[in-house]
């Protein structure tokens, strides 16, 4: 038995990020008015990569597997799931930081920007580690508050400020709902610890109150993962936010929201015990999954604005991942849950890449509609190849890992007996091909209508986009490690 003190080292990925955010503030205070962020961006990138490497190393070394290391009086846990999601969050953060360097040229307050990104990432990583409702809430608020500020970062831009305000108001409302849900769960089970809640569930007499609490928690998660019915902030916030931030919150923050949902519902509200009480939370997620897939994809198909199309498609993808919770109880739990985790992993790269491409286009002053992207290949063939990869992979064509994860997800749902979930998924995926290929068509096939000045080829954005593209493609032949890690993680969560 290792002592508590030495097991703290297992939290290294989170600790590195937390320290990094403080160091960034410190470094920025040396010359706060500087708008040259080379040092800040470099330092953030190195720190995030250290965190990423350590998390990857821990995952390979099997830290906390299979039972999980409980730390700080069971408030935090380190296991396969938490490390897997730490990998997703830090990968996305690294790409976002690299790309932000060019995007933010000439903007004031860059020190704050990088600190907030790293602080939000810290919150997301902690969400993956959280083992009690109170740490869930605190880490969720840490990431949310940082994200609100990031969305409104361009404070002279009306869109950005408006987006930040909407995001904040809805965020505050859902936080209130969420914390109220926690209090109801606490009132009925007498505990905050996930395993203790699970133990208390079967002894409670106030089933109605508990059920209400669970419903409120679902609402909180739906907000964080941009699922229906709490999705409507997402298109506004993604559109108004600085685009690297849109990439960040639509990929990393969504993954963090899902890991909490996975852990809380599976560990604190065991299916059998809850079903015995008549609280069928799987049913709620089934309804949410179907609505989210349909609404997200149909809304995306109707957009004229590329960034909004991506935002709604991101809602659609949340629907696919929800299948991970909606198809539980069919005898294929670890496969279904693992498939949802895999999808979040691949999604982390392809969706971030897609948003970063939009950031690149914005950097050049390309407009917002599909027509504005017409003939863009002439200016940036390499980035256009990359975005073609993202679009087809998001749609589920076998050009990247997105195809495999969708296949595993849908077939796992069929295997679990929820063929109708898979059918909705497959149909909405087919629909998604329409709007994803629309961008491809604009870029490669249509002739340009507007001319614009292309000032430069921003290196950082290119690095971010190409990294995402290469990983997306490489995840097709090299998919097995992801499957392996996700399956182990899912199995340990369900054990």
């Amino acid at each position, binding site marked *: 038995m290792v002592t508590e003190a030495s097991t703290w080292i297992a939290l290294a990925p989170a600790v590195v990020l937390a320290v990094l955010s403080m160091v960034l503030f410190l470094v920025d205070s040396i010359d706060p008015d500087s708008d040259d962020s080379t040092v800040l961006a470099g330092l953030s990138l190195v720190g995030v990569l250290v965190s990423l490497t350590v998390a990857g190393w821990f995952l390979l070394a099997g830290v906390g597997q299979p039972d999980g290391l409980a730390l700080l009086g069971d408030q935090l846990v380190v296991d396969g799931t938490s490390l897997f999601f730490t990998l997703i969050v830090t990968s996305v953060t690294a790409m976002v930081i690299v790309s932000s360097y060019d995007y933010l040229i000439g903007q004031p307050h860059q020190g704050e920007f990088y600190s907030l990104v790293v602080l939000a990432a810290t919150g997301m990583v902690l969400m993956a580690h959280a083992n009690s409702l109170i740490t869930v809430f605190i880490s969720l608020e840490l990431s949310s508050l940082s994200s609100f500020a990031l969305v409104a970062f361009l404070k002279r831009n009306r869109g950005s400020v408006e987006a930040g305000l909407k995001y904040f108001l809805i965020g505050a409302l859902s936080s209130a709902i969420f914390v109220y849900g926690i209090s109801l769960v606490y009132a009925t089970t007498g505990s905050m610890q996930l395993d203790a809640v699970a133990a208390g569930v079967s002894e409670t007499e106030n089933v109605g109150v508990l059920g209400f609490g669970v419903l409120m928690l679902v609402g909180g998660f739906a907000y964080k993962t941009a699922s229906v019915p709490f999705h409507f902030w997402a298109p506004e916030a993604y559109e108004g936010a600085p685009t690297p931030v849109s990439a960040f919150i639509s990929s990393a923050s969504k993954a963090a929201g899902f890991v909490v949902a996975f852990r809380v519902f599976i560990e604190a509200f065991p299916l059998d015990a809850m079903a015995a009480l008549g609280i069928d939370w799987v049913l709620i997620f089934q309804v949410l999954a179907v609505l989210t897939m349909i609404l997200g994809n149909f809304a995306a198909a109707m957009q004229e604005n590329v960034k909004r199309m991506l935002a709604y498609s991101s809602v659609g993808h949340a629907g696919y991942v929800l299948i991970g919770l909606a198809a539980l109880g069919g005898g294929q739990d670890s496969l279904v849950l693992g498939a949802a985790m895999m999808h979040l992993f691949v999604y982390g790269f392809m969706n971030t890449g897609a948003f970063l491409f939009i950031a690149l286009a914005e950097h050049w002053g390309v407009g917002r509609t599909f027509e504005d992207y017409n003939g863009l290949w002439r200016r940036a063939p390499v980035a256009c190849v990359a975005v073609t990869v993202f679009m*087809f992979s998001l749609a589920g064509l*076998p050009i990247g890992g997105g*195809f495999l994860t969708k296949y595993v997800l849908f077939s796992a749902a069929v295997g679990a007996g929820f063929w109708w979930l898979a059918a909705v998924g497959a149909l909405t995926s*087919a629909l998604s091909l329409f709007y994803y290929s629309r961008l491809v068509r604009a870029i490669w*096939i249509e002739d340009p209508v507007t001319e614009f000045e292309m000032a430069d080829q921003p290196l950082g954005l290119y690095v971010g986009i190409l990294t995402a593209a290469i990983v997306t493609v490489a995840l097709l032949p090299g998919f097995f490690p992801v499957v392996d890690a996700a399956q182990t993680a899912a199995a340990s969560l369900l054990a």
Partner: protein
Amino acid sequence: MLIETLMAVTLVAALVVFITPEAYAPQVAFVLSLLPLAGGLWLWSGFDGSGNALLGGNVAFESQFQWIALEPYAINWHVGLDGVSLPLLLLTTVLVPLAILSAWTPIEERVSQFYGLILFLETGLLGVFTALDFFVWFVFWEAVLIPMYLLIGVWGGPRRKYAAIKFFVYSQVGSLVMFIGFVALLFGLGDSVSSFGMAEITQALHAGELSGLGAVGAETLALFSFIAIFFGFAVKVPIFPVHTWLPDAHVEAPTPVSVLLAGVLLKMGTYALLRFNFTMLYDVAITLAVPIAAFGVVSVIYGALLALAQQDLKRIVAYSSISSMGYVILGLVAFTVYGIGGATFQMVAHGLISGLMFMAVGVIYNATHTRMVGDISGIADRMPITVGILVAAAFGYMGLPLMAGFAGEFLIFLGAFQSTVLPGAPVFTAIAMFGIVIVAGYLLFAMQRTLFGPYRLDTDYDVGRAPLHDVAPLFVLIGLIIVLGVDPDVFFTMIQDAVDPVVELGGGA
């Protein structure tokens, strides 16, 4: 690892061409496309396959290793060649360099991208014809769509966007339905298979391991899966009534893309029909023999009649493809050695002949800038070589002996006539044979009006002999067509060896 090397070389060639400066791209692409051709010939020279790859035959250059160890169905990388896949692989590697040569004149913009996509397309096609794991096969099957979509959409004619999207949507819907049908079949097999290996699934199906899925019984499941899979491939072939994307795609596509579309892409459909519908689910195929044969025969006659009504040379050739692929369907459903073997042979033969026809029409278009039968007249004097080859190709299409088309069609008719599993086989065959008359009719009619007679083309272009790089591929193809026609055994012994086990499934010999 030879097959993997072949694919890797082609893919790298595609990337190299993509970043080659426009000025050198045509030459570089041509030279690099000779590498897969050399690789294909190398595979042929060392080919030691026997029997059918799905039915326990000896698979040449087989390589298999674990890719994704997923419960309950592992996905393995598995490729190899048998007597059915090798001829199609060779067809692909031969047609691509020729298509690239035929693109030198008409393709003037975004040259590097064009040739890069052609080679990317070739990589996908090589994968389709060599993959022996359903999942790997499906990845390549879908990967073919993306370059084709762009090739038609960017370099096509005036209605290219419409044609490209129609092609994409039709193909994608077909693929989705097929995929769902196949996966349903796999779920129905339950624990008796542990991977997507096509041979493993075939054997489990033949062993009667298929159980129902949910409330659906085994027989119904097999039937519905068969129909879903058949539909998916019927779109690709294409069979009436899901053929409507083809004329649009062909008319809008530039010559080299039409060559590959008719020459190889349509064969993906018939190849997959042979592998999946007629090998894996042969019993359902026999049950449905009459409707399948009916679809085939209707495609033959309807395609030919449509071709008769066209004014555009390219459209004539495009519709005649529907007709020719109908013969292939008839041959497959006959379940005789000559039927299935002839159908496979016809895939190669039609690939070469239709490729040649499209190229020849392309050369004429390059010179005259019109393809309308009513506009062109008497160009035989101006471009005697091209016209000579086009006439020869037309005779090949009509099934003149000593040309590849004759061997294919003759074998199919012979095989279909003898069929024991197809009720009323002689009737179907007789109706289909009538198609030849219509083919001869519209081709001769079109030739007579466009090539011969008085020259009265009203154009500013100087209509004269085509440059060597335009004519050279025509010579190569007509040479191959004659070689295959004179000595069909170059491929037919190999094909027969691989289709015999399939025929035995149908109870034939």
